[in-house]
Every structure is written in structure tokens, then in C-alpha cells.
């Protein structure tokens, strides 16, 4: 599943050690899908997540440190995307995620999906974001006042 989705170009995935502009990524993605020669999808849903300026405890955040499990993280995202694509009949999926040191206001995650109808696009994108948050190996450490604190779990939906 994961392989076939990636082989036919329907899944594009990138982990970024440096800041990235989600709109530049989306433009590249749209261009690459258009280059495939198929008609643009009738529905496209995007989600951009950015780093908040405060910690879970309410203190000013200096930076977020994002650890991942190189190899497994990518493979796991590919599996999650393929499952979600199959369940919702998605045409294409794009996932970008920061790793390393991320500053407040920086984009940390981009999830973009396309489908033939709005419902699958919106539901599929939503579900894939939740899956990433709970099933893809990433760990956040909040740095505030020079002290790093590992974050246990995710912010409320």
C-alpha cells in the first residue's frame, strides 16, 4: 500500500531540518501533480500547523526541539498516508514536517490532500493530521528560560 502510493507519486513526504514555506511547497506539489497530465482534483484541503509562542505551562517559548526516529518516521508516515488515502479515496497526499530546532511562528507541519469531492478531502486531511500526531514518531521538547521539557502527548484537538 505505502509503496504503491509512493511509487505512483500520490504521496510526497519531506522532513525539513530548516524552515520551509508551506505555500512554496504547495505550489511545487500542484505543479508536480499537473505535470502528471491529469485534470486538477475537484477538492483540495490543506492544514498548516505553526509553533505557538508559549509553552504548555504558559511560559514564553524560546524554541521547540523536534526529535524523530529517522527511517521509521518516514516509513510510518507513508503507511498512515496510504491507509488514509485508501479509506477516503484520496488522489494525492503531501506531508511536510519540521525536525530539529523550530522557532515560534515557524510552520511545523503541512498536510495537503486532494480528492474528487470536498467531504473526502476534508475528512481525509483531518484524519491524517490526527494520525500523524498520535502514530508518527516525533517528540517535542519545549525550551523556555534555558530549560528543556519533553512534551507528553498532544495539545487538545
Amino acid at each position, binding site marked *: 500500500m505505502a509503496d504503491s502510493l509512493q511509487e505512483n507519486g500520490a504521496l510526497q513526504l519531506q522532513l525539513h531540518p530548516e524552515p520551509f514555506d508551506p505555500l512554496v511547497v504547495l505550489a511545487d506539489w500542484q505543479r508536480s501533480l499537473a505535470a502528471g497530465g491529469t485534470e486538477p482534483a475537484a477538492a483540495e484541503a490543506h492544514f498548516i500547523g505553526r509553533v505557538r509562542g508559549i509553552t504548555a505551562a504558559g511560559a514564553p517559548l524560546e524554541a521547540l526541539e523536534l526529535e524523530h526516529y529517522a527511517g521509521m518516521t518516514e516509513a510510518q508516515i507513508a503507511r498512515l498516508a496510504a491507509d488514509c488515502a485508501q479509506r477516503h479515496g484520496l488522489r494525492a497526499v503531501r506531508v511536510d514536517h519540521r525536525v530539529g530546532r523550530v522557532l515560534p511562528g515557524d510552520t511545523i507541519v503541512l498536510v495537503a490532500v486532494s480528492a474528487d469531492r470536498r467531504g473526502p478531502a476534508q475528512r481525509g486531511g483531518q484524519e491524517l493530521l490526527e494520525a500523524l500526531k498520535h502514530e508518527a514518531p516525533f517528540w517535542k521538547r519545549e525550551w523556555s528560560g534555558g530549560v528543556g521539557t519533553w512534551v507528553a502527548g*498532544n495539545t487538545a484537538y
Partner: protein
Amino acid sequence: MTASVTATVITVRLFAALREQAGWAERRLELPAGAPAPTPANLWRQLGLGETLPAQVRVAVNQVFASADQPLAPGAEVAFLPPISGG
């Protein structure tokens, strides 16, 4: 002809808070050939990480989520993963 040639080699990896608590990120274990195959739960105790594997720690074997009780094949990479917080 030495024991190590036929030993069962298992790589154990720790991440994030677990890595820092333990003070190491990766260990390569050589288990005597012929010994019963260890499970991730066995290794957790054997490596002094704790008595029993806490429920919130997840296990990956060869980079796929796996049961803590599955016997490990020679050459396996076992990882202990603290609660995920991505996205």
C-alpha cells in the same frame, strides 16, 4: 568458530525522554547462540530500564510498531518510544 560469530545480535534504541533518563541512545547486545529468543519486555528489564515496561512506552521492531512480547529474531532493531507528540 568463536561464540560471537553465531551470537544473536540485537540493537536496542531509546528516544527522547527515555534516552535522556537512561543516558544512552543505542546498545548492541550479543546474546549467546542457542539461548531462547528475548522479547522487548525481557530486554527492558535486562537493560535495567525498569521492572516492567510502562503502558505508555511503545515498542517498535525493525521500525514497525510491535508487541512487547514478540520473540526477537537475530539482527532485530528494537526501539522503546515514549509518548508521541508530533505535528
